[in-house]
């Protein structure tokens, strides 16, 4: 018996897709700035990467405000409950059409693995990419700030480390978007807001 629940509100969907576009674009331009390939041209890549970064900052200001005022931030509180069941499902159950061990509700829309993954993004990857990114961008102001102990080489190194983490997250995230009730149910939910569930 399939039922539909409303999990992703309008702002959330807007946030998700615009953030997705920005992150993909920033990966594309960022790895070019790093020297991995030539695509848009170095100067354009730098300029667009910077513009995209500021756009993402603005988007985040709204997103943080939204999460705090709606209480949706609670969705990211980690839990170890059913983590083993989720892992087991991805490793075996998913192939045998076993029932999904996690039941989505409006109050709890992320499965325990998702919660952990997103928390990792929030607590590790994002601070790393943002802090290194800001230092990178404001390299010429270090002296005015009294930052003499930092080297651009290490700032860039950790910025790239974080970028690779995002790339790997991105691959897993896209794939796992197909691992819902049906291969497209998560994706549809992220577009319409309505998730089909068991």
């Amino acid at each position: 018996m399939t039922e539909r629940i409303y999990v992703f509100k309008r702002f959330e969907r807007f946030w998700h897709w615009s953030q997705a576009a920005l992150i993909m674009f920033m990966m594309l331009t960022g790895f070019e700035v790093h020297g991995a390939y030539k695509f848009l041209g170095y100067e354009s890549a730098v300029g667009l990467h910077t513009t995209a970064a500021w756009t993402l900052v603005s988007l985040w200001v709204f997103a943080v405000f939204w999460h705090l005022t709606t209480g949706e931030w609670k969705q990211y509180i980690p839990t170890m409950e059913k983590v083993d069941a989720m892992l087991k499902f991805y490793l075996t159950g998913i192939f045998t059409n076993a029932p999904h061990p996690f039941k989505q509700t409006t109050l709890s829309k992320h499965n325990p693995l998702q919660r952990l993954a997103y928390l990792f993004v929030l607590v590790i990857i994002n601070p790393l990419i943002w802090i290194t990114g800001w230092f990178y961008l404001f390299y010429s102001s270090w002296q005015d700030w009294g930052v003499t102990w930092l080297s651009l080489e290490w700032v860039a190194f950790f910025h790239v480390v974080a970028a690779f983490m995002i790339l790997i997250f991105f691959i897993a995230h896209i794939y796992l978007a197909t691992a819902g009730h049906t291969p497209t149910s998560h994706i549809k939910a992220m577009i319409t807001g309505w998730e089909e569930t068991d």
Partner: protein
Amino acid sequence: MHTIRSILIAVMGLAFGLLLNTQVWANATVPAATVKAELPAQSAAEEIKAKGNSTADHSKFKALQVDFKTGPEVTAACLECHTEAAKQVHKTKHWTWEYLNPVTKQKLGKKNVINNFCTSVTSNQTFCSACHVGYGWSDDKFDFTSEENVDCVVCHDTTGTYKKLPGLSGHPNYKAMEWPPHSGKFRPATDLKKVAQNVGKTSRKTCGGCHFYGGGGNAVKHGDLDSSLDNPKRYLDVHMDANGLNFTCGKCHLSDSHEVTGSRYAPTASDANDALIRGEKGDRNPSTCQACHSDRPHGDKVSAKLNEHTDKVACQTCHIPAFARGDYATKMTWDWSTAGKLDENGHRLQIKGSEGRDVYDSKKGNFTYEHYVIPEYVWFNGTVKYTLFGDKVADKDVVKINSFQGNASDPDARIWPVKVFRGKQPYDVGNNTLGVFHTAGEDDSAFWGNYNWDKAMEWGMKAAGIEYSGKMEFVNTEMSWPITHMVAPKEDALACHQCHKEGGRLQAIQDIYMPGRNNTPILDKLGFAIALLALIGVLIHGGIRIIMSKRG
């Protein structure tokens, strides 16, 4: 009814006519006035321009209406009015050819340095002093206190007919003379009266008369100075563009009391300041880019990032994308070791390349020339250390005649473009010093007369006051020249990716992190490998799901 309409039309017509008339008046009177006012003003302006905007017409001075026999006579006449001029010149490097570097304490100046072109002035003054602002410097007995020996007109000539010839100890030819030697062409005697009556401000021609021809010929030495700057297009020099800003050398190299600013012995490598304001107190060099443009010249709104480069990169690095961009190739190498080969009749050989320039000369050895040369790039904080007379050579494989100081952590250092001139020249094996040899002169020791290295070395080393072991070899040498002239228009400046890539222009600068270079190869390999594994992992997982769902 009809009449009223007629009257109305007539009145309107009249009014319109009047209006039209006033228009015509206005149109007619205004240009007439303008023409009347402008015509005489324009011709006066042209007249003044022809006389170089000067308030004095030197041809009207009695003291200059004289048939001068020699240069010093002209100078004596100049000094009658310009009583302090020679004393001022005496204090300058143009006169002393000497400079004490306050940082390194090295005694520099043309008189004291060795280079890898003609190598040394010592013992060759009769030739070299063709570019000295004086008359009669032929040996070490020259009187540097003589006021009449100052050559005023070499810098202040406007006729273009005054030329000091090598071999005449700083004098022009006072009699008709075959020039170039053995060419069959004759230079008429210098008309000193005409020259003296037409003195004026220095010009690109007068400065260029020496500075474009350094190293023994047009474009030879510097790479960013040659006679194409006499009348350059915008492409070659955005400031000197003859149809544009039309700067003279003196526009940047502001002078005071004959002291010309800007120096290759103590260059200003960085100037992290706003543009210099007229009248501002301080001792900033007015010849730098920053003196006019400030160190944040790009406009913060357009490109803050470009401005942020000025703490590490000299303006010249991006804005002079290549040197020898004019009409002439510049000399890049000079191998003295092959000099002295003569043809079967024992005559001097002069072999020219396809561009019409010497590639071999018995007097000088082998040369190479290049056009549109991409500079080499070095950190430079303004201090240059020289290998001078008698200095022990540090590295015999390649002797650095001068070395630019600075590195990434030096706040005064910037990345500068340089022309590195590579030579092979005499070296005293026994004393481990660079050689000084007697090149030119009317005696039997001059290399250009007898092609005998031993005699030339003995004489030269003695004249320089350094010991000679009697055993000489040739060593490879390098000398760097900062590139700072022939500034390209902004559309020809370097693009970001010319440095920000693997193998870019700044590949030799390794002590600084540069985005876009392959800086972290291990991280990159690891990162992309894990990402690839993740991709393969999800593809396998997805594949199994598809297969299983079809079975199910």
